[in-house]
């Protein structure tokens, strides 16, 4: 059967099982938008191409399937860059299709031409400029395979307009032409046995669980391993929910703003069982002081992550679900011998956990503390909901405070830290999970203003997401660093809680807008919002601008120095200045570092 390139794009997407695409039409991609009308695909019309790629990410995060976005050439394609980079950093399977100017015009600086292949090379797992119409089905099949297999990531196909318009005899490729791409799935048997030996011999083991477990769908296997061997677990920002927070062995999140016990567990451990995590600087702090006593087992599907930041004693390359399953099987066959003697360690960690809770001083009336707001949001929408966050203080508080109960319940931008992620990603996630599961975007007022135009897409396509803005009127995380590291010299971090008026924004989009300004009304406002399930809703929670996220390990600092509260910080800072009237203070001053001790300084990353 003769088809056009444009028809082949639609048919190929159907063949690989795509049922929804997020996109925005334009000149070079116009041919593809015509057969879209008949295609068995739902198209969500976003309001900015960045929204399309973040929505595709949200869809992929929530469903585990490949999220697809389709946009035109030039500025549309360059608008994808942030989202592609975000997807690369967080290993999110995304397929982006961009129109390109006609192949005869490439290189001539034609209207809306950009070197999309070159621009997106560093922000994609792979990309391709499709140079013949016959190549379209194979390119889409391969792109979909590359995006979703191995370490998932974004793949972009750039298709010139003339190629979309040409015709050819439709043929679906019978095999993939990828001789240089063979991800390892199964872990090496001997390495798996060595890992089980090492766990059995440990006295202070900790599972350092990362986002790779979520991508691999390894929640059940992880739970089996943890329960079989009675292992404490920390879950990184990308892995929250891979084990329920209510589980007795769950210690919370490690890292810069992690739970004290999780940070401490890694520091004191004699063995890290690292599963789908990558020793990110936000977790390790100063690498030289990170988990100084620990041997390391590292399971990752990407061999390049193993040994990248931290020396590894037992490396295992493979899919996290498969490898953890192998670990469970070998350990189970060994019976009691595989279980480490770690009773004293677990007791110690339970004590540390008890002694170092998160806390915040919420007055009985008046100002709403952001932590209170987050907990109230969870109380209103409950454990069934999926929560999507932007980047900054609200993200850290949500990750810390919500008692995660399942994988894919928590969606956020981790590696790239992309402000503006939440609104479009929540829309994509809602499309993925369907009407029965609530999706709540917990966003900051700074983040929200980067992408809230996508509310129009939610309204137009009847995607009932709850958008909850933790509105402190400032760029909270940046302001926190200015407070701590720049002597409270607030430079360009104040935006104002009334600018814009979020309730009026809601009104402009024709959706309910609610506001909570003091703690007394918080619960009733949120329960009212949670009751709205048939349309999007926007909630403006006015919170204390001065609240800071703790615990905190300053960037590049040692995880041995966790500061648990603003009070502790101030006490340390004051103690530091009073006792050091001497050489060090002068040296610090000469170096332009002010009067604050080294462990309290900003760090270089």
């Amino acid at each position, binding site marked *: 059967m003769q088809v056009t390139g444009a028809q082949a794009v639609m048919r190929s997407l159907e063949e690989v099982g795509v049922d929804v695409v997020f996109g925005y039409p334009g000149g070079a991609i116009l041919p593809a938008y015509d057969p879209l009308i008949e295609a068995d695909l739902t198209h969500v019309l976003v309001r900015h191409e960045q929204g399309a790629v973040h929505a595709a990410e949200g869809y992929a995060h929530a469903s585990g399937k490949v999220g697809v976005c389709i946009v035109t050439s030039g500025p549309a394609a360059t608008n994808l860059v942030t989202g592609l980079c975000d997807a690369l950093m967080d290993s999110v399977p995304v397929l982006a299709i961009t129109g390109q100017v006609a192949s005869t015009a490439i290189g001539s600086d034609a209207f809306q031409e950009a070197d999309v292949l070159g621009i997106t*090379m560093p922000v994609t797992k792979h990309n391709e400029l499709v140079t013949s119409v016959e190549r379209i089905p194979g390119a889409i099949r391969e792109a979909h*395979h590359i995006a979703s297999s191995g370490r998932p990531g974004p793949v972009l196909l750039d298709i010139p307009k003339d190629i979309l318009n040409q015709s050819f005899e439709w043929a679906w490729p*019978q*095999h*993939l*032409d*990828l*001789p240089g791409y063979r991800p390892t799935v199964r872990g090496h048997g001997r390495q798996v046995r060595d890992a089980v030996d090492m766990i059995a011999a440990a006295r202070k083991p900790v599972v350092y669980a990362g986002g790779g477990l979520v991508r691999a769908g390894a929640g059940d296997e992880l739970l089996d391993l943890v329960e079989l061997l009675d292992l404490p677990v920390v879950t990184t920002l990308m892995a929250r929910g891979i084990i329920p927070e209510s589980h007795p062995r769950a210690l919370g999140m490690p890292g810069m703003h992690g739970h004290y016990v999780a940070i401490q567990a890694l520091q004191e451990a004699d063995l890290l069982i690292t599963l789908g995590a990558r020793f990110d600087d936000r977790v390790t702090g100063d690498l030289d002081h990170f988990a100084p006593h620990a041997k390391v087992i590292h399971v990752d599907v990407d061999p*390049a992550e193993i040994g990248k930041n931290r020396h590894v004693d037992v490396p295992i390359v493979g899919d996290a679900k498969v490898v953890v399953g192998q670990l469970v099987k070998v350990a189970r066959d060994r019976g009691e011998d595989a279980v480490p003697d770690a009773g004293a360690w677990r007791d110690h960690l339970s004590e540390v956990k008890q002694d170092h809770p998160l806390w915040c001083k919420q007055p009985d009336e008046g100002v709403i503390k952001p932590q209170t707001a987050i907990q109230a949001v969870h109380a209103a929408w409950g454990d069934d909901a999926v929560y999507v966050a932007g980047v900054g203080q609200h993200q850290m508080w949500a990750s810390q405070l919500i008692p995660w109960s399942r994988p894919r319940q928590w969606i956020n931008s981790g590696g790239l830290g992309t402000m503006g992620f939440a609104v479009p990603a929540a829309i994509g996630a809602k499309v993925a999970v369907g009407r029965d599961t609530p999706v709540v975007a917990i966003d900051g007022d700074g983040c929200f203003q980067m992408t809230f135009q996508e509310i129009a897409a939610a309204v137009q396509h009847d995607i009932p997401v709850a958008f909850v803005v933790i509105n402190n009127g400032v760029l909270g995380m940046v302001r926190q660093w200015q407070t701590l590291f720049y002597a409270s010299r607030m430079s360009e971090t104040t935006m104002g809680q009334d600018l814009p008026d979020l309730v009026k924004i809601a009104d402009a989009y024709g959706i309910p807008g609610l506001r909570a300004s003091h703690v007394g009304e918080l619960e009733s406002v949120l329960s009212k919002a949670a009751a709205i399930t048939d349309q999007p809703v926007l909630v403006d929670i006015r919170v204390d601008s001065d609240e800071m996220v703790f615990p905190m390990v300053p960037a590049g600092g040692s995880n041995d120095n966790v500061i648990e509260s603003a009070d502790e910080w101030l006490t340390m800072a004051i103690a530091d200045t009073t006792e050091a009237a001497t050489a060090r203070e002068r040296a610090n001053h000469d170096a332009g570092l002010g009067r604050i001790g080294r462990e309290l300084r900003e760090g270089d990353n």
Partner: protein
Amino acid sequence: MHQHTLSVLVENRPGVLARIAGMFSRRSYNIHSLAVGPTDDEHVSRLTIVVGTDPVHLEQVIKQLNKLIHVLKIIELDPAESVQMELQMVKVSADASQRGDLFALVDVFGAEVVDVDADTVTIAIAGNTGRLGRLTPLLETYGIREMVRSGTVAIARGDRSITDGSKLRLQRVV
């Protein structure tokens, strides 16, 4: 900082060199030299990359290269276990009166005179980097007008081959 020689087989596709060069630059790895050319298989090109790095980073370089979809195989060639050669051409100032001495020098080094003009002589020399390095200063006395080097190419000694152990199947049924 040690120099390591990598031989890399890649699919012969548009942009593959840009992918490799881009990976090196965005991860701050240092390419000392890079040579690329076809192989006996028209679908496969071979690159020889000389990298200046310590062993830990070398492992990262190899792993990151391997992640590129169009990279088929990478081996490191130990200088002691491989033949490494580079081609250099040098155009020096030399009129008829100086040619005799210059040609004698060329003979000693086993180099070749590839072009002669009224007041220039162009010399080609192939060999390892050390050999090239010894000739160049001697030519400087004549005055070097311009020079060009190909970058190192390398191949394993003995019966070992980069194609060992992995039949490179360009069509694979999944």
